[in-house]
């Protein structure tokens, strides 16, 4: 750029100031005229929004910088709640916050409620504990290694046991004071058969691989003000857990078998991915962020990008589901008991304690490292306190449901 052209540009800018301020004045007039119009009832778009603080209309890169710093500095609960607050302030803040926050698989942290339905990290498991309240038949899942002093731990999920004529239900909710199935906070349930030998996990929302999200895709064409389809209270069977007596030693540990219908075996093959829902129910966030379906070697779409179209969805059941089994404990001759290496996370012997690993055949092509990984570990550390550690491809919700089944098995299979 030559000196002359720079000077000319500077000169034009100087002259342009006058016209810019004139234009600014004009646009102010335009805005006030728009405000007095009687407009059809629509959600305000950004350009015609009512008087909004400049803090809501920051340049995106600046807002991103602010919220990113907040997110990076508040990694632990309860302080992390502030990140969720940022996503609830206004639309621009919500968009940026959702862009910044990564899934538990990516960053090992739980942030939004939907984090509870997303797979955990591959390497270090997410460590939680469960507190049982026998008096109210309630089970509370907290984030943290062990109960901390002062009871300020983050409550993740709550379950209430409801005995019915021929079965038992564990209703799972985001909060401990509302177990209504019609509530926004209803997450799913675990149902056991009469004998306490077979359990089914039900999710309040369809897994990513079902055909039902196609309805969501078409509803995305409607304006965000469109009345949301009535929140369905149906449940989707996403897993089955069975317990078998150990016939060889009647006092030995029972065998657990867990089939996860919503997670394909390909998720633990090389390059595989697990379904990662991005929003609860038929929420408006789905209009920004598509659901992700993953089957085997399909390229993984970036879950935090709001602009990618939804990947093609497959009917539930195509591709073999992932099956988990409990790791066989070793008989310790000297201690005269069955032992598993819980790496210090379980300290009280109990028939309820278990470690789940993937049940694979050689034909499944799963690496030895993956086969060795303990995907879910559960065990007692005190009266009515149990630890629960889970990792990819399980989510906190699925892990919790599986652990709850351990509470309900009848003496017949112990």
């Amino acid at each position: 750029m030559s000196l002359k052209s720079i000077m000319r540009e500077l000169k034009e800018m100087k002259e342009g100031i006058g016209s810019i301020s004139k234009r600014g004045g004009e646009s102010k007039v335009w805005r006030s005229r728009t405000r007095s119009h009687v407009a059809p009832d629509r959600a305000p778009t950004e350009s015609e929004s009512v008087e909004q603080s400049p803090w809501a209309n920051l340049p995106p890169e600046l807002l991103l910088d602010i919220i990113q710093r907040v997110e990076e500095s508040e990694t632990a609960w309860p302080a992390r709640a502030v990140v969720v607050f940022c996503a609830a302030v206004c639309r621009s803040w919500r968009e940026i916050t959702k862009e910044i926050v990564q899934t538990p698989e990516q960053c090992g942290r739980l942030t939004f409620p939907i984090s509870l339905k997303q797979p955990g990290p591959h390497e270090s498991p997410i460590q939680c504990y469960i507190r049982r309240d026998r008096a109210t038949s309630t089970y509370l899942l907290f984030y943290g290694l062990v109960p901390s002093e002062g009871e300020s731990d983050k409550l993740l999920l709550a379950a209430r046991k409801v005995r019915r004529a021929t079965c038992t239900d564990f209703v799972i909710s985001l909060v401990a004071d509302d177990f209504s199935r019609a509530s926004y906070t209803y997450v799913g349930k675990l149902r056991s058969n009469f004998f306490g030998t077979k359990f089914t996990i039900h999710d309040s929302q369809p897994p990513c691989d079902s055909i039902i999200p196609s309805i969501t895709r078409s509803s995305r064409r409607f304006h965000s003000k469109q009345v949301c389809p009535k929140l369905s209270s149906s449940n989707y069977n996403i897993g089955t857990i069975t317990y078998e007596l150990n016939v060889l030693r009647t006092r030995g540990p029972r065998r657990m078998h867990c089939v996860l219908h919503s997670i394909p075996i390909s998720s633990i093959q090389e390059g595989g991915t697990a379904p990662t829902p991005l929003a609860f129910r038929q929420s408006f966030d789905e209009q920004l962020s598509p659901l992700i379906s993953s089957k085997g070697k399909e390229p993984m779409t970036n879950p935090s990008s709001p602009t990618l179209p939804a990947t093609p969805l497959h009917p539930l059941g195509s591709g073999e589901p992932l099956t988990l089994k409990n790791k066989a404990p070793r008989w310790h001759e000297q201690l005269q008991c069955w032992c598993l290496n819980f790496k210090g996370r379980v300290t009280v012997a109990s028939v309820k304690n278990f470690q789940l690993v993937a049940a694979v055949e050689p034909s499944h092509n799963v690496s030895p490292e993956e086969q060795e990984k303990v995907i879910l570990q559960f065990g007692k550390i005190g009266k009515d306190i149990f630890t629960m550690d889970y990792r990819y491809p399980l989510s906190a919700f699925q892990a919790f449901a599986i652990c709850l089944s351990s509470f309900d098995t009848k003496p017949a299979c112990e």
Partner: protein
Amino acid sequence: MLLSKNSALESKDNEIFEVEESIAIQSELIKTMTTMVNSKAYVNERNQMVPEARCRKQANYHVEQNNKIVDEELSDWESKFFEVDMDDLHELFMAANYLEIESLLNGVTKRVGDFIKACKNVEVIRQTFGINNDFAAQQEEEIRKLNSWNHI
């Protein structure tokens, strides 16, 4: 002839003030503009900054920053510097962004972040920044209900 080490900066509201060149070039924008005009120290070069009305404050920011050697003094001074109301803070923010002054931008970003972290819930954040709730009614309802997870 001794070349003055000062540059004169004119703001949008036609205020002219002199700053030391070493301070003026903390702004990436000014630095770029001046290096394009003249590679040597310049004399009373007039540069236009279109939306800017806070130059003096920023010039002061840098002068003080350079003068303060002791860390404690600096952070004390910095916290006082940023003790302004939200409107002023916003202006400072926009100015620092436009002029591309990284240290000032970092300071403001940190201050805003601290404000956010001190808020106990969504309503307090909105009040602090004067932001209106612009969610559609149903989305607002859903967000509110899901946020009961945080016992807000």
